[in-house]
């Protein structure tokens, strides 16, 4: 528990069209001390982000359209460049394509601060989020 309480907590926007992923990550983030607002589509996520301030966003890459997450990510970063955004994707296991944002070039065109591949372990997400909120 000490490791978790050491993390900075905040208000997180969670965007995914998969209701199960949404519910699971919401419970886990809340148990790690975060406040969570969920959105079931990229459009809803963008609308919420325009109306209120979030400390971080967790966005699924593949929603209604295959790259809806990219687009949302871009809008979020344009609106609030300093807000950390984590992109979550099932793309590696589904198509064999590997996405990563480890190099500077990749980070420069994909506006995400971290990438996680589904299935996401809860400590992975809370850990990544905690680190980004501290920075």
């Amino acid at each position: 528990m000490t490791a978790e309480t050491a993390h900075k907590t905040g208000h997180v926007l969670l965007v995914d069209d998969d209701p199960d992923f949404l519910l699971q990550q919401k419970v886990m983030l809340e148990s790690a001390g975060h406040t969570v607002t969920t959105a079931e589509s990229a459009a809803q996520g963008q609308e919420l982000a325009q109306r209120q301030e979030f400390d971080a966003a967790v966005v699924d890459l593949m929603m209604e359209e295959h790259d809806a997450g990219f687009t949302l990510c871009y809008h979020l970063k344009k609106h609030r460049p300093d807000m950390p955004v984590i992109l979550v994707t099932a793309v590696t296991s589904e198509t064999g394509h590997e996405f990563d944002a480890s190099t500077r070039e990749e980070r420069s065109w994909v506006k995400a601060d971290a990438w996680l591949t589904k299935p996401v372990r809860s400590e992975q997400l809370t850990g990544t989020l905690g680190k980004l909120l501290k920075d």
Partner: protein
Amino acid sequence: MTTLRVLVCDDEMGMRVGVARTLRDHRIEVPDHGEPVCFEVDQAQTAEQALWKIRDRAPDLLLLDQKLPGMSGMELLKALEQDTPDMLTVMITAYATIDSAVHATKMGTFDYLPKPFTPAELKDAVRKAAAHLLLVRHARRLEEERRRVRFEFIRVLGHELKSPLNAVTGYLQILNDPAAAPDPATAKQMIDRSLIRIDHMRKLIVDLLDMTRIESGQRRRELVEVDLAEVARMAMETLEPAAQERRITVALHADGPTAINADRTEMEIILNNLVSNAVKYNRDGGRVDIELSCDSDSITIQVADTGIGMSPDEAAKLFREFVRIKNAKTRNILGSGLGLSIVKRIAEMYHGAASVESEPEVGSTFTVTLQRRSEQTAENTDDLAEATNP
């Protein structure tokens, strides 16, 4: 335009030049091949030279003289062994004996052209060879396509089976995690979602088994007189709880006789799928109208809903396997993605068809037509399996 590459191997220059000249501006049409075929001719003076050229890049068609200085035509074929499965050989020989023809055929020669031959005879032999070559290639492409579709099906199926397992595993891990400690209401919500996902997975497996049995043609079909109105009423009964929960009215309109000589299970699959979709994709308080009508040859099942509808683009691909229209409105509706493709296959077994007309926000009408007295019999499953292949 398809260009076939021809290599003529003959020690007589007159022969080589004659062949090249005859085929140079020759165009042919091949049955079931969408475009004209022309030829590009290369020459070899000896079998050794031909072997070198073939090893470098095999032509589509080899016109090979049997009698050559040095290595003979037959020895060339032996040297090539089975290395050139895509190349057809036509043997040219002045010594036309049955024996040599038989021998050449054994060595994998497709045809046999006795010397001397006229340009018309050459063209005829080349036309036959080209038609055979293109037919074989076409068949092979179809076979590859079939395999590709199979692999794709299995890939998507694997994903569809894995995704509910991932969801349920996720819930169980949270429920098992002392640090997570969800409140009782959230815990119940997680258990309910798990049960829904497991139920969905079971439905997928049932649909998959239905589809496999229909496709393999191994299911014992019992063709008896089936009253579609009765089958429709049973489907309505099954779906009544789901319809009532969302205040959806389901009505049956049967006009005239509704009996058909059919397999009862297949009729149940059609009506259950159509009515269940009409309820699932409806709006709260909507309507489902099932209409059965017939003429002397066929029975038409029409299921109309007042639901979310879909665009023409979405409707066009709806009957394919694992196609589920994914958008904000369908996000929370679960389905296997196999139901409508099964309905279509069954309709085709009754020499009928399945189609949809739809308008977004207004509703969809699904129409399935079945021939009442089709020629089929319960034993005649081979043809049926054939008819249901993609």
